[in-house]
């Protein structure tokens, strides 16, 4: 098996290395990908069409919003899949293992440090989410950081402590709510007579906005939807995997 793998890998690698001499030079500003009309349009016209300085956020949430919506759905489905695989497994009914030594007890110092840092992490996560228009960040990063703060609580205070703050049912509800916010924004545009996720038209509903500002604000709304889903699913993945589907005990 090793030999077969080695032969396959060497042949594939050799072919790819042979193909690599046809690639454009690394970092060439005039390569086909960098010099395309689409790329130039995004760089020069985003500021006029959406007034968002961070081009990546604008392309993610507006121009390619349909793509991002289904990426959010993929995260949601992955979370549901993990729950389906482990929550129904016979291991979920097993009794908890007995603590092996005294290090299993929760330590005062880590719990207090966690209590001090978790609010700061959550505040920073909200900042990353809200400031995604002007700096690197956005729904995915802010959501993962918010989920990571719950994981930190689970690591220091035990899984039950974290589940008190974000229970399984509430997490699934939040994840579904995130997808609903995203798809709902799209449907609202359709309802008002434009294409799915065409945010221009929302200026009718958002008070005191032009068409450009409507796109600007709608991006924040869909990013919030993404953040809800990602937060809930990241925590659910950790809670399920670390407790073998029991949702008790944990690491």
């Amino acid at each position, binding site marked *: 098996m090793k030999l077969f793998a080695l032969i396959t890998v060497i042949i594939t690698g050799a072919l790819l290395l042979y193909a690599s001499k046809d690639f454009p030079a690394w970092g060439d500003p005039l390569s086909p990908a960098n010099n395309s009309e689409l790329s130039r349009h995004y760089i020069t016209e985003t500021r006029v069409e959406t007034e968002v300085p961070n081009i990546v956020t604008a392309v993610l949430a507006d121009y390619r919003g349909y793509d991002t919506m289904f990426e959010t759905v993929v995260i949601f489905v992955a979370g549901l899949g993990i729950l389906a695989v482990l929550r129904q497994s016979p291991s979920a009914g097993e009794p908890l293992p007995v603590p092996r030594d005294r290090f299993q007890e929760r330590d005062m110092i880590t719990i207090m440090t966690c209590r001090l840092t978790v609010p700061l992490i959550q505040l920073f996560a909200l900042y*990353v989410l809200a400031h995604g228009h002007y700096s690197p960040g956005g729904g995915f990063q802010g959501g993962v950081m918010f989920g990571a703060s719950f994981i930190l609580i689970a690591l220091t205070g035990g899984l039950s402590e974290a589940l008190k703050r974000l229970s399984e049912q509430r997490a699934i509800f939040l994840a579904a709510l995130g997808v609903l916010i995203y798809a709902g924004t799209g449907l609202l545009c359709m309802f008002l007579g434009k294409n799915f996720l065409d945010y221009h038209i929302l200026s009718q509903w958002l008070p005191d906005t032009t068409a450009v500002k409507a796109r600007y604000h709608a991006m924040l709304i869909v990013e919030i939807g993404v953040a809800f889903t990602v937060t809930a699913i990241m925590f659910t993945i950790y809670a399920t995997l*670390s407790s073998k589907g029991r949702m008790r005990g944990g690491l």
Partner: protein
Amino acid sequence: MIPSFDIVILIFLVVTAVIALTLKDLLASAMVLGIYSFLMCLLWAEMSAVDVAFTEATVGAGVSTVIMIATVYQTTRKSRD
């Protein structure tokens, strides 16, 4: 892009990838994979892909490592290869 920085990180990347796959202890393997992700994040920041680097720092180096360690804790720590 800074070429000298680039070369150093790329060499470290190959080294950490090989170490992560050869270690017999799965917990250590997961930790080295976390290092690999952080190096990758550094490389993307250097390639001026800041959003991608930020995502990799939170997802690849943070959550992935944690869930992998959770699985190793719940299953077994030893690997035969």
